């Protein structure tokens, strides 16, 4: 084992990359849950985003168009969930599971022509002199535009939820759909919009894995990151900034175990592989006592006549 093989600067820069898919998917899901809907289909939407983004980038030659395709793919899939839960009033847990099972199947069907293909690379943003600052420069200022967009997204969601009327309405719908309905807000439309937003974010998160983190397509490559994103929302007690912190924690652990694998630590690879999942369980246990932060209508079905 040779721990000196782990370069601390590359390690930190790497875990910012590892955290980005989680940031996108979890922030999207946070908005969905704030509106009172529990969408367990994050994993399915991410994997669809991963293949749509990959295919889009390969076919057009533009990674950015790939990300747009991923957002669209995730949003379209989430519309199915919106239809099931908002129009046909299906159980949200079951519908979310259906979305994941369907998404995993569909993505491997769509992905068949793309196995072994290398996607076009998204260039790093040119931040000029900032990148030349020792230590801080390579860690913070040598990434692609999507990574920075993830940070902007967290800030924007935080600001919208906290300071705007739209955010207030969204939270009202999530806390008490009956009261929001009585005040004349279109509960279902607001929730559908939130679901589609969540789908688009999960899609981008998935594409970040297939286009930047791993740069290739393999079946089921999201490997539970969608579920970790769901856990992350609980971890963050539905607060955007805590979500960012959590994403870095998980990204850090994931990156650390990969680095340890690379350094040839005496722990078998399979046990390192399971560390992000075990960590998630441990974190869930520590944080599950306080449920007061959860939106009050989370997971409940709304029908105006009932």
């Amino acid at each position, binding site marked *: 084992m040779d721990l000196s093989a782990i370069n601390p600067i590359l390690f930190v820069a790497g875990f910012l990359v590892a955290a980005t898919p989680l940031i996108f998917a979890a922030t999207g899901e946070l908005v969905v849950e704030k509106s009172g809907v529990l969408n367990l289909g994050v994993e399915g939407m991410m994997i669809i985003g991963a293949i749509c983004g990959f295919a889009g980038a390969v076919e057009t030659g533009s990674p950015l168009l790939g990300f747009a395709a991923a957002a669209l793919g995730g949003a379209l899939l989430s519309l199915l969930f919106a239809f099931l839960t908002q129009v046909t*009033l299906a159980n949200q847990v079951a519908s979310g599971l259906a979305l994941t099972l369907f998404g995993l199947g569909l993505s491997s069907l769509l992905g068949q022509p793309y196995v072994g293909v290398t996607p076009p690379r998204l260039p790093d943003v040119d931040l000029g002199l900032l990148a030349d600052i020792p230590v801080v420069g390579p860690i913070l200022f040598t990434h692609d535009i999507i990574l920075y967009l993830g940070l902007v997204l967290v800030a924007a969601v935080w600001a919208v939820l906290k300071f705007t009327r739209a955010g207030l309405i969204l939270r009202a719908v999530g806390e008490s759909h009956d009261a929001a309905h009585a005040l004349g807000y279109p509960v279902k439309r607001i929730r559908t919009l939130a679901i589609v937003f969540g789908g688009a974010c999960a899609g981008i998160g998935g594409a970040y894995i297939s286009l930047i983190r791993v740069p290739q397509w393999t079946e089921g490559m999201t490997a539970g990151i969608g579920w970790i994103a769901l856990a992350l929302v609980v971890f963050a007690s539905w607060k955007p900034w805590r979500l960012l912190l959590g994403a870095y924690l998980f990204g850090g652990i994931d990156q650390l175990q990969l680095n340890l694998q690379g350094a040839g630590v005496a722990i078998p690879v399979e046990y390192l592989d399971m560390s992000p999942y075990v960590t998630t369980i441990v974190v869930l246990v520590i944080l599950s006592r306080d449920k007061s932060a959860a939106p009050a209508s989370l997971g409940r079905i709304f029908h105006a006549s009932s």
Partner: protein
Amino acid sequence: MIRLEKRPQPSRAVSLATPLLAVLATMVFGGLMFAVMGKDPVTSIITIFWQPLFGEFAFYYRPQLLIKGAPLVLIAIGLSLGFKAGIWNIGAEGQYIMGALFGAGVGLALYPLDSFIVFPLMVLAGAFGGWIWAMIPALLKVRFGTNEILVSLMLVYVAESLLASMSLGLLKNPEGFGFPGSRNLQQYESAFNADLIEGTGMHWGVVAALIAVILAYVLMTKHRLGFAIRVTGEAPRAARFSGVNPARLVLFCLGTSGLLAGLAGLFEVAGPAGQVTIDFNVGYGFTAIIVAFLGRLHPIGILLAGGLMALTYIGGDIAQSQLGLPAAAIQVFQGMLLFFLLALDVLTNYRLRLGKPEVA
């Protein structure tokens, strides 16, 4: 404009009809999907649903129906208990793997002991493996209020890593020339889960599935515990007032479903699969979720739904070899089925009304 109007009573007739409607809708839309992929939709559907049962080589495929259907039914029966009570074990795949590892582990440890006791011990170990794996989310939920959906699912990935580790390490066949995977239990008579009647596909897993169906039926209709499960699902507050202990219910539902999933894993690894390999599990734990819903969380329904889902697996295999239909297409097909089922379910509790909403 179409509105939904709540029925005074959920309609039993519609509740029975929706799975059939969902299957039909899936056939139509699945056919469309196959057409888009450049396959003849009618031939594809016939290949999937007719060939395994009544085609030229049906004698070969019919036993497969039992082999594929048994684990699905066994797991789905367990899941349905929890689902009815609002306890969501979606980590059956992990419990299935752990059942197989524990069961096969005992069998391999006793190799080459020739005794009638080997297989029963493996069955016990398999059940225990699944049970203990399900107890982790159950105890965490009871003790800390942790979400069982996320924990049971995370444990699937942990179990998959353990499976990889075991088939590359501890359980690896010492005479396997370095290839990953354990000894083949099919070649170890005392441990082999053989057909009870030669060539029928009728192995102990099928027997266990049928027993599970009967026991679940009795439990849900005749026993106090079944009543507690139903009440908890429909009205959790009322359940608490009527003296249902929610913690005990969580332990029971998760434990039972883990135990059954573990059994399914053992019967599979000791029979049709034969050995512990990195990918011997083929997603039965996840497909069983569809089976449970398709069967309306009712034991008899699950039996039928398990048969149907087994049919799509086998028909899918045939379509793959004869028509070049990708394996993933069948997975999409099964996912579609769940979508249609969930969407059509609304008709059980609501009536569709045409026209403008009345002004209240």
